[in-house]
């Protein structure tokens, strides 16, 4: 057997985390992308930059600030304790929050580009055909942005799958709770279990390749990387 029970546990946890984070990101990221694509507010630049920050920020830096913010003395920590959720670091819920922030730009950017590419006209046409703005969004804007949504889903999922730095900072390495795939690979290498590390690393490599290839096959003209 190639995978140990610990490996399987890490794989399961990682898949649950990535799926949950992707779903949350599509829910949260789509309105943000819509706002960034269409708002004329002067806050558009700063907020766009904040959303994109994880693209350039070292994951450990992000993880460090999240650890402080979600800790017992941090603002998020106060809030989560007040709501009876306890403290988020070193819990799966902390990983979810951190991953949502960390993978945000990978989801928001493709959706924003798709919304911008649609332009105003199709929505104006819908409004002139008696569609309410919300109706126009769901019946015209969202279907037309489908390629962008698909790319966002794939990028958000695969990016969450491989994160290491942020998890290390706020999640630790707790088996079954916060020990994700990249952690497990690190543990194997630490223990000089190279065969085990190869199986997991090779699996991730193959997965990533298939994802990028499928993106290309889906739309050869669109360059996402």
């Amino acid at each position: 057997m190639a995978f140990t029970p610990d490996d399987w546990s890490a794989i399961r946890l990682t898949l649950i985390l990535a799926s949950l984070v992707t779903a949350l990101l599509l829910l949260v990221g789509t309105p943000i992308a819509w706002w960034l694509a269409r708002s004329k507010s002067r806050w558009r630049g700063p907020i766009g930059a904040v959303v994109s920050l994880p693209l350039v920020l070292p994951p450990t830096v992000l993880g460090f600030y999240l650890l402080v913010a979600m800790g017992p003395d941090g603002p998020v920590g106060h809030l989560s304790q007040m709501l009876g959720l306890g403290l988020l670091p070193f819990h799966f819920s902390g990983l979810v929050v951190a991953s949502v922030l960390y993978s945000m730009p990978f989801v928001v950017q493709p959706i924003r580009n798709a919304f911008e590419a649609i332009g105003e006209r199709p929505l104006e046409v819908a409004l002139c055909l008696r569609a309410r703005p919300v109706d126009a969004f769901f019946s015209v804007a969202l279907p037309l942005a489908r390629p962008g949504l698909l790319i966002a889903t794939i990028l958000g999922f695969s990016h969450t799958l491989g994160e290491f730095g942020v998890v290390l900072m706020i999640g630790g390495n707790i088996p079954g709770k916060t020990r994700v795939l990249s952690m497990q690979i690190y543990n194997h290498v630490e223990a000089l279990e190279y065969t085990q590390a190869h199986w997991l690393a090779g699996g991730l490599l193959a997965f990533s390749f298939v994802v990028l290839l499928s993106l290309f096959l889906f739309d050869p003209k669109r360059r996402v990387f």
Partner: protein
Amino acid sequence: MIRAKFELSFPGFSLQAALDIPARGVTALFGPSGSGKTMLLRCIAGLEHPVDGYLEVNGETWQDESKSIFLPTHQRSLGYVFQEASLFPHMSVRRNLEYGYARTPAAERKVAWNHAVDLLEIGPLLQRATDRLSGGERQRIAIARAVLASPGLLLMDEPLAALDNLRKREILPFLERLHQELAIPVLYVSHQIDEVTRLADQLVLLDAGRIIASGPLAETLARLDLPTAQDEDAGVVIEARAAAHDTRYHLTRLDFSGGGIYVAHSALALGQDVRLRIQARDVSLALAEHQDTSILNRFPATVMEFAGTNNPANVMVRLDAAGTPLLARLTRRSQHQLDLAVGRRVWVQVKTVALME
């Protein structure tokens, strides 16, 4: 009635328009590009929100900034046909048509599905994808889609501008039929005078964001104080009625208030109303009736007014033929030789008449 008053400014452009037109038939918004025609249409549709605005359509207030009323676009009973057909690319032709139709409450449906489909002859296209259509077909579908939402006012923004001349001729008859069969008032933006003379009943002239004239088409086109009179293609439209067919010479006689006009034989039913266009450059004047000329169409008229043209050699003359205004472009030399003056009775000779049909 459509009563509108908008004030709107962008860097480099401002619109200050007050409009008062009957909400029936076709009203053309005519002017050079950049004159604010499209902006005016967008304000009426509620796609632009002028800070200072008032709009009343068919007795309903759509906008009144003094009372903070601004009806959002989807609550205004209007249809909008854009310059490009703008069909929804993710829907079939049928679903495009259904979009507005399905969102119209059954009680408000004035246009039947089959009527619109037959009128624009798009039955065979219903199952097609939108990228498998010609430009003319796309625009016909866009028009049908707008009409199927049973609008109380149809806004058309140069719907033919993106088409070549052949496709334009293909669409024009549909627009005329639309006009005749559906009692939907139309605001039609154009910078093509031939489209305007063919379709419009009312004419609104715009220039640099201002409305410079507004009135019935024939009357407005005959005004010498407007830029339309300076146009190379300046001319008038005449409402006439098919009176007789001359089988021997293959001609049809059309009667108007000033007399009869012969055109090449046309398959018109006798008694049918038609619109004619006579361009000022095709009209010449004589002091007496000339029998010895090949020009067939001659009738008496009175000189009403003169105006200079961009070309100093020419002069524009407005005439009255028993209540029908006409324009003639002459050289100043001819004017002096004939000693033309206001009030003078003359014979009008018309070389070319275009039947708008």
